[in-house]
């Protein structure tokens, strides 16, 4: 739109038309935002003061405080042209015009320095497929998140920032799990905790460190032990306990048989979930396959399918992290020193 358009609009319906007043003020400042700002800046003291006067009149009410007279210039001309019926309308006409001009003349506030930046983490970012798997685990199989985190760190990857935030906030009071998360997150975790003490509150008690200085060696790059620290033994009933180390065929046979005969039922769910969590990874794929074909008993169908999904998910997650780690090593041999995340060039 051009300035002449706006002036025309104001002229056509000039009587008592606050809207045109608004448009016309912009016309005066030529609709271009930067010019708007310049006009606002030059007699800025008077216009800013005038805005304050309008605000205080409106706050107390024009019954008690009359409308301020606009400073000479565009605004005064336009208020004159619109002939407001009373003080309230005069305030509104001026507010409409001035608010529009101020918003259209929007400028950034003074520049601000960057945050003390997060110490570098030279581990590669978690591969996309594994990242999607973690989203799935958080949603469907939180029981497997700890193992995933341990394996991720063992494979030499770091968590994606969105997962660092989601997990650290969710488990902020869980000290053991926070240790796992922080290990996979690297220096990002303490850096964020320093910036957002409230959101990451639980961490403050167990680990009230400030933002780590950038030259400190990130402790998280130390190779983690493969055994999950939080995976303390969970009592399995005597008839199931031997299964943890048993031959694949026995494990699969016992589970499929128990579920299809209804000997294992929903009341065993926590125990069975824990068992699948602890089974030798090599058994998982055939177990999933056998379970997903075994669902013939309607009373245990849901549980059977659910366990099949868990076994399949755990197998896939282990494969992904193992294969990615191998790929990554090959790639590292070819080209060294790629960094990830947002590039810092401006």
């Amino acid at each position, binding site marked *: *739109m051009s300035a002449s358009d706006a002036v*025309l*609009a104001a002229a*056509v*319906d000039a009587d008592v038309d*606050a809207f045109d007043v*608004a448009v016309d003020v*912009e016309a005066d400042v030529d*609709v271009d*935002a930067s010019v*708007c700002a310049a006009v606002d800046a030059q007699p800025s003291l008077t216009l800013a003061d005038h805005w304050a006067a*309008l*605000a205080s009149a*409106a*706050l107390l*009410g*024009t*019954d*008690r405080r009359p409308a301020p007279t606009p400073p000479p210039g565009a605004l005064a001309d336009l208020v004159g042209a619109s002939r407001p019926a009373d003080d309230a309308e005069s305030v*509104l*006409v001026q*507010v*409409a015009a001035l*608010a*529009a001009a101020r*918003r*259209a*003349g*929007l400028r*950034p*506030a*003074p520049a*601000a320095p*960057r*945050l003390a*930046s*997060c110490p570098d983490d030279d581990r590669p970012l978690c*591969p996309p497929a594994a990242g999607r798997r973690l989203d*799935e685990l958080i949603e469907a199989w939180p029981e497997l998140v700890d193992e995933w985190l341990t394996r991720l760190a063992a494979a030499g990857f770091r968590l994606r*920032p*969105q997962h660092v*935030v989601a997990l650290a906030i969710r488990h902020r009071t869980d000290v053991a799990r926070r240790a796992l998360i922080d290990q996979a997150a690297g220096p*990002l975790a303490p*850096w*964020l905790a320093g*910036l*957002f003490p409230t959101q*990451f509150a639980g961490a403050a008690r167990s680990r009230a460190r400030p933002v780590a200085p950038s030259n400190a060696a990130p402790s998280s790059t130390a190779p983690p032990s493969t055994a999950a620290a939080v995976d303390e033994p969970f009592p399995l009933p005597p008839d199931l306990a031997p299964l943890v180390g048993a031959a694949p065929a026995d494990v699969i046979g016992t589970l499929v048989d128990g579920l299809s005969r209804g000997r294992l039922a929903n009341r065993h769910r926590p125990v069975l979930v824990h068992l699948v969590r602890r089974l030798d990874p090599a058994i998982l794929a055939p177990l999933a396959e056998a379970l*997903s074909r075994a*669902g013939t008993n309607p009373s245990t*169908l*849901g549980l059977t*399918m659910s366990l099949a*999904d868990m076994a399949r998910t755990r197998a896939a997650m282990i494969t992904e992290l193992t294969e990615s780690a191998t790929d990554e090593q090959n790639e590292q041999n070819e080209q060294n020193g*790629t*960094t990830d*995340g*947002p*590039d810092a060039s*401006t």
Partner: protein
Amino acid sequence: MATSNGSERVDEAVWAPEHVVAMAPDRAAVAAARALALPGRWSATGADDEAVWGVCRGSGAEPYQVAVELAEPAFRCSCPSRKLPCKHVLALLLLWVNGHVPALTRPGVVANWLAARAARAATAAARQTTVVEPTDAEDDVASRRTDRQPSTAGPPSPAPGPDKRALERAARVAAGLGELDRWVCDRVRTGLTDPALATYAPWDQVAARLVDAQAPALANRVRRLAGVVGTRAGWHEHVLAELGALHALAIAGCHLPALAECRPALADSVRTAVGWQLRQADVLAQPPITDHWHVVGRSDTLEDRIVVRRTWLRGRSTRRWALLLSFAAYGQSLGGEPEPGTIIHADVHAYPGAAPLRVLLGLIHAPATVDVDGPPSASLAGACDDVGVALAAEPWLERHPLTVRAWPTLVDGRWVLADHTGSMPITGNLDGVPLLVACTAGHSATISAEWMPDGVVPLTVHLVDGAVDIGPRGGWS
């Protein structure tokens, strides 16, 4: 800057598990669908370019017949669930995206269903040219939630001719705007410290009156103000500026014929701001704007029990901004809109106006794919100019998109976006800020945000290996 991770994204399928999850009406449905998304539970599954189908063994005696039309997407399931889509539909889609559904020729039942849908769509399109589309615009949010006068909120009666109806409506709107203006003037007369203003009742009353007068967009605007009174320092300046805008819109709305004569585009903007319903067919009749549209961000706000989703687009060659609006009642899924971080080759048709932002999606030339290059970015000062030009054309604008290259930082304990040209405060509920800071690690990054009068709301961080959606998800406005 290009990494091994960056190149992997190109190979991703258009449908990924997260798209299926995004369609779900709630988390429970996803959990239920996962348990069902196993080959053992399904028979007679198949898929072609347009549809996926299958039969699911459920807890009941009868298995459920499930079919999904992919383009829309549209769903059909013989189960009694009222969730849309139900867990069976989601499970079938999960099965499909995981590669467990074979490509087959569609069976007769599915073919018939697709044909019936196509026929219905054709009839609807034909009808749209004559009948006002009832569930369309932002206006509808207001009319759906206020059932005070079903006679005016219901579908228009076909009896009087369109001219007569338009005149009647204009008169009703003008009366409502007159009342609004008197009320606004009275507020300034008695003062904003009036304790009654700190309660919702007076605002709701005015809003309800505006809905009756068929000015629902203004009604929403008034309702939003009710939530601002007394909530933060400087609220009265915000309310005052809004009262000024309401005053201007009320008067402009009463003088529409005169305005339409000299500045038709501006008159259209006023009509939209007031809440004049526009037929979808009329919008779709506008000349198409064809471009590759970067999907730069998404923000959901909860207005009463309706989720309003804004999906912001940026044309790759036109450099135009565009807004897709969608609505869902509580418990229904939104879904269907392109995801932030993708790019879609499509026609859009703009609602008329002086600073036209809102569009309808027309013909889709190529479905959304991962946006490898990301949207173009500006400096903060450049973005301010952009927003300023739009505001000069439509001074009552409440939101405008921007994509900047900036870093998040703290100024006196408040979060801002900053670059070499200055800084802008971050506003809204700040839930997305930890994620924004984590994704940028304090460095500068390409960030899309929504400008609002009191600051910017970050929506998306465009990283080299993918976009991270950090936009608000309902619950505040």
